[in-house]
């Protein structure tokens, strides 16, 4: 029990002191995850919209596939990206394995289906509402995509934040492709796993507290977007 309370007080001390190792790890986590979510949004939002306005055979099947890919196990994504990036893999020449870029790729792969599936749902509702009006204005279905994305902006921010929550808490994929190398690819989740197994509970706990605080922050952001004055005005 002593070590339990001791770990907590040491963890808070690390946070308050602004421990440089801890800050470095938090900074890398945020950089990797935010870049991955940005990439996933750039790819996923237009694809989500295209799944709504597109009329092609297999569209429903593709929607089902994307929806089920939302539940991709991170370790499996890590394994697949590892196989792509390893020396014998098709992208081995890029020498990206065990770099933050590899971790960004893995998390982007993990989050993109979430962005596609959730944005498709949001945009489908808006499309049902706008379709007749926009067609009456002479717009083709594909020309509607930018209009739909812009007008769904407040809901799409919450979609992006959902992706962020998933990516930042994920450990399996970044561990496999990043390798948890000190000062290079060590992020919050991988550090927590490592330090816990080493018995260094203070650092693990400190990172855990920050991780939970970030999760709270993301959820608070979702709530505030949902209730923001701007959104209400454009409801």
């Amino acid at each position, binding site marked *: 029990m002593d070590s339990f309370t001791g770990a907590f007080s040491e963890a808070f001390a690390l946070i308050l002191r602004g421990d440089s190792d801890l800050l470095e790890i938090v900074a890398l986590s945020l950089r990797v995850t935010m870049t991955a979510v940005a990439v996933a949004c750039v790819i996923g939002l237009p694809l989500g919209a295209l799944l709504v306005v597109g009329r092609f055979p297999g569209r429903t099947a593709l929607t089902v596939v994307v929806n089920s890919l939302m539940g991709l196990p991170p370790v499996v994504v890590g394994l697949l990206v590892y196989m792509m990036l390893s020396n014998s893999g098709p992208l081995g020449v890029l020498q990206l394995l065990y770099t933050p870029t590899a971790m960004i790729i893995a998390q982007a792969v993990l989050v993109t289906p979430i962005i596609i599936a959730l944005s498709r749902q949001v945009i489908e509702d808006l499309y049902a509402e*706008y379709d007749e009006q926009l067609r009456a*204005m002479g717009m083709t279905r594909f020309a509607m995509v930018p209009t739909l994305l812009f007008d769904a902006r407040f809901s799409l921010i919450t979609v992006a934040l959902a992706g962020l929550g998933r990516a930042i808490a994920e450990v399996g994929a970044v561990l496999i492709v990043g390798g948890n190398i000190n000062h290079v690819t060590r992020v919050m989740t991988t550090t927590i796993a490592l330090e816990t197994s080493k018995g260094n509970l203070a650092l693990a706990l400190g990172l855990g507290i920050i991780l939970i605080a970030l999760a709270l922050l993301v959820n608070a952001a979702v709530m505030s977007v949902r209730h923001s004055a701007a959104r209400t005005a454009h409801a």
Partner: protein
Amino acid sequence: MLERVPVLIRKRVTDRKNRECMLRLRNVVFEAGGKRLIDGLDLELFSGTKTVIMGPNGAGKSLALKLIQGLLEPASGDIVRPNEGADFATAMVFQRPTLLRRSVEANLDHALRVCRVGRADRRHRVEELLELGNLEHLRKQPARRLSGGEQQRLSVVRAMASRPKLLLLDEPTASLDPAATAAIEALVNEAHQGGTKIVFVTHDAGQARRIGDEVVFLHKGRLCEQTPAEEFFEQPVSVEAAAYLAGRLVL
């Protein structure tokens, strides 16, 4: 009785000298859910007149507008625009406006962009449209927070953004108060004076008298009569229209 109607139409039809036929519907059929909702509609619309379409609920008035606008495809029949040029634009205003989740001026800017108006022109065209709709003071307001009357004014001037040759309005004032209705009618008259052909669906006989040059009366997806407005209200040709005006016609 019905067999005689086409003959009578020819006698009573609006003076069409110097009028250009803008749109011709020939034996247009539209079906949905196994029901024939537009049943061989023949209709000619001429430039320069304000046409009011009347008829009971379910007569096919809204469907006719959507077919003309190209929002629906007829199952058979033709919709011909004899003199359609490159600049021929039609626009449509719905009973319930669907405004974008943007400010008033951003809604107009979007409509102009859809019509491929360049950035420099857009700015002063937005000003023109705001002025036309008496919406200058609301330019920064979220469009969907406007009152019903303001929303419909915005919806009408937005439709004007494409400088349409033909403006279709589907009961645009059905849920508006008299003042807001008058504002919409004024906008419609302004568009008419600017050379836009008006086709206006309404159930309101008073409104039809105020704005209509001619009345097209539909029943069960067919044309019953097309008569100058004054004559229509004095003495309609078809039994259906007479019954409708007396409040006795139901579908």
